């Protein structure tokens, strides 16, 4: 990893800076020592009255010593080395890192108001209400509706992080139907945590009662485990159920609650701003590489309808099915949909039309030896 090169270069700078600093310090120290020495010698009560010009000779001695110390080559050398390191480091940075990431930038002015709204929602979505409020008031934007909706969630989450299940259970109970619709086991998770909490306070009986009242409706498998764990209550950590003590159960509950809450709100649990910026940091390197190679494409860059190169984002940014016809390399569209040949291979309608001369003859699948009859091809919906 190149970070090491950068680190080494910086270490050199820091080392030289320290060295140069201590050399300067040394010089200053020596200067004051010499001057003080001379001063003491001059001030010494002397009986030697026949030399009234003693101080003169001492001062001229001092001048000699001082001139020897001051432009000391060592100091100069140390500083020179520091300068070398100082001018080298930015070069290392420029070489290992992309020094100008604005090369693949289209000169469009973003609507400031929209950007502000996005940033404010981001802060609220992260539970950073103070920063969000401060941001809103400084930019003079109208209050964001995102604030209210996220506030409740963060109160629930805050309680949950304190291991207070009350607000979470209340919310889950009042949205029970919707949670079930979304196939979420959040309620079960929360009840289990509550059960374990009661049990941990060494009240096995209370825990059983709680389970009776709240848990059976959901799952028997989970219930079996919970009840069984009571057998080891008190020294659960040495039991097969030690996992029940793990804090990850709590973090999982927090995650699931966030997911479900956002889901019901109609928001994405991942902040759209962080998703976009994360996608941006994946997309920028190939785009910059392209712009570095295609210096004369600067003008085109400002107007092109589609990126000039494919940018491969990782899986988590894949939100839609994209079908690219393996023959024409074009993306499918409504008027050129993907079609499945009877052998199972998939091409775009245009390709099939071309190869079958508009359905007038059968053709060979480009991927296997099958003979294809165009009328047998079926459109696919991804």
């Amino acid at each position: 990893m190149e970070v090491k090169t950068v680190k080494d270069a910086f270490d050199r700078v820091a080392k030289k800076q320290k060295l140069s600093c201590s050399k300067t310090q040394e010089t200053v120290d020596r200067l004051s020592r010499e001057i003080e020495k001379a001063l003491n010698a001059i001030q010494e009560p002397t009986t030697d009255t026949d030399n009234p010009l003693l101080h003169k000779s001492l001062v001229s001695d001092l001048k000699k010593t001082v001139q020897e110390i001051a432009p000391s080559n060592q100091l100069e050398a140390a500083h020179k080395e520091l300068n070398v390191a100082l001018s080298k480091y930015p070069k290392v940075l420029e070489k290992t890192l992309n020094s100008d990431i604005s090369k693949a930038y289209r000169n469009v002015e973003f609507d400031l108001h929209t950007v502000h709204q996005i940033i404010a929602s981001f802060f609220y979505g992260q539970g950073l209400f103070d920063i969000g409020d401060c941001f809103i008031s400084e930019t003079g934007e109208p209050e964001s509706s995102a604030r209210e909706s996220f506030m409740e969630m963060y109160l629930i989450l805050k309680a949950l992080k304190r291991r207070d299940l009350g607000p979470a259970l209340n919310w889950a109970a009042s949205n029970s139907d919707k949670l079930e619709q979304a196939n979420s086991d959040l309620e079960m998770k929360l009840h289990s945590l509550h059960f374990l909490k009661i049990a941990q306070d060494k009240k096995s009986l209370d825990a059983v009662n709680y389970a009776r009242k709240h848990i059976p409706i959901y799952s028997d498998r989970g219930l079996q485990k919970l009840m069984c764990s009571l057998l080891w209550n008190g020294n659960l950590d040495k039991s097969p159920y030690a996992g029940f003590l793990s804090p990850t159960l709590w973090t999982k509950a927090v995650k699931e609650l966030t997911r479900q809450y956002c889901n019901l709100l109609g928001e994405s649990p991942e902040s759209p701003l962080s998703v976009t910026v994360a996608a941006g940091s994946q997309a920028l390197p190939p785009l910059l590489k392209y712009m570095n190679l295609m210096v004369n494409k600067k003008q085109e860059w400002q107007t092109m309808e589609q990126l000039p190169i494919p940018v491969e984002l990782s899986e988590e940014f894949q939100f839609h099915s994209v079908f690219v016809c393996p023959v024409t390399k074009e993306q499918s569209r409504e008027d050129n949909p993907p079609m499945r040949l009877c052998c199972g291979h998939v091409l775009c309608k245009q390709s099939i039309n071309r190869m079958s001369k508009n359905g007038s003859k059968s053709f060979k699948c480009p991927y296997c030896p099958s003979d294809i009859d165009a009328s047998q091809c079926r459109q696919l919906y991804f």
Partner: protein
Amino acid sequence: MEIDPVTNGNADAIMTESAPTITPPTTTPVPSSRLSQLTESLKLEHQLLRVPFEHYKKTIRTNHRFFEKEVSSVVSGVGDLADSDWSRDDTVARLSSLVSRLQGLKRKLEEGSNVENLQAQRCRARIDHLESADVENLTEWNNTKLKRILDLVDIDIFREAKKVIDALKNREVASALTWCADNKTRLKKSKSKFEFQLRLQEFIELVRAESYNQAILYGRKHVAPWGATHMKELQHVVATLAFKSTTECTKYKGLFELRQWDVLVHQFKQEFCKLYGMTMEPLLNIYLQAGLSALKTPYGFEEGCTKEDPLSQESFRKLALPLPYSKQHHSKLVCYISKELMDTENPPQVLPNGYVYSTKALKEMAEKNEGKVTCPRTGLVCNYTDLVKAYIS
């Protein structure tokens, strides 16, 4: 997986590894493409390292220059003393003052080196921050990154800039000129003519005020030295002496326009960013643009687009409007039901009505419903055995 030291940190920790309800952490091997992607992303962080370094460098230089001057003046002080005829008492007094001057210098030196060390620490912390990014904690790391793009991390540097910009907006060049003097060598190296432009503007202001004599004096002192390199512009501006600020002569009218001050502000921003190795455009916008383009698909603008896609949001659509669409060379199929990628591990299967879902999702559905699957988009019910495969290359 994080292990809480309180509950699991004892000798029995081994046992907890096989806890029944907790799935062990799945350590899938990290694909090399992800690693190289990360490496490439880290290369975008030039500015993160460069800005504090330039700051650090500036401190070192300023400190050094100061000490050099002080030391040499002490040395010449001793020299003067030796060369002139002072009485013993005077000599003592002079030497004592030199000693106390050196003491003060020493204190300053310590302060200075503390500042330097602090700045060095900051540079190092940033390097460590880059080093700390790896594939495992990428989400978290990306989050920190976003926050630092949003907050002005190098705020003191921006304060410096803001002072100059505010002054320029008030039509004062003094602080901009000080800034130029502070960074003289760097600006000279990059052949900047920002100072020249500031001088020209001052000249024009004098002409505007009809203080022609002063203008000429000013021009002689500050503008003429630039003649060697920028004669043409110089002539153009000095010629304004012949005009009034209300001139209609198109060639000179522009020079008197107050808009020129905004041009100066813009130029200052450019010089400033260049000096610190920063991009002119806000980092957030750069990342947003690249991200929006890479995510922009026709599907994102459709009704009922999945809300995980940032482009399902009105505000993001608005920003993405003037940007290019992404380009794809390979098919990528996402299962409508599970949102998982359909690949060789989880191949697509086709229902009799042509709708395609992932094998995993369909299998799961069939297991729950006695071998039957229901198309979530059309309501069609069929047997799992009626499904056919589709090969997507």
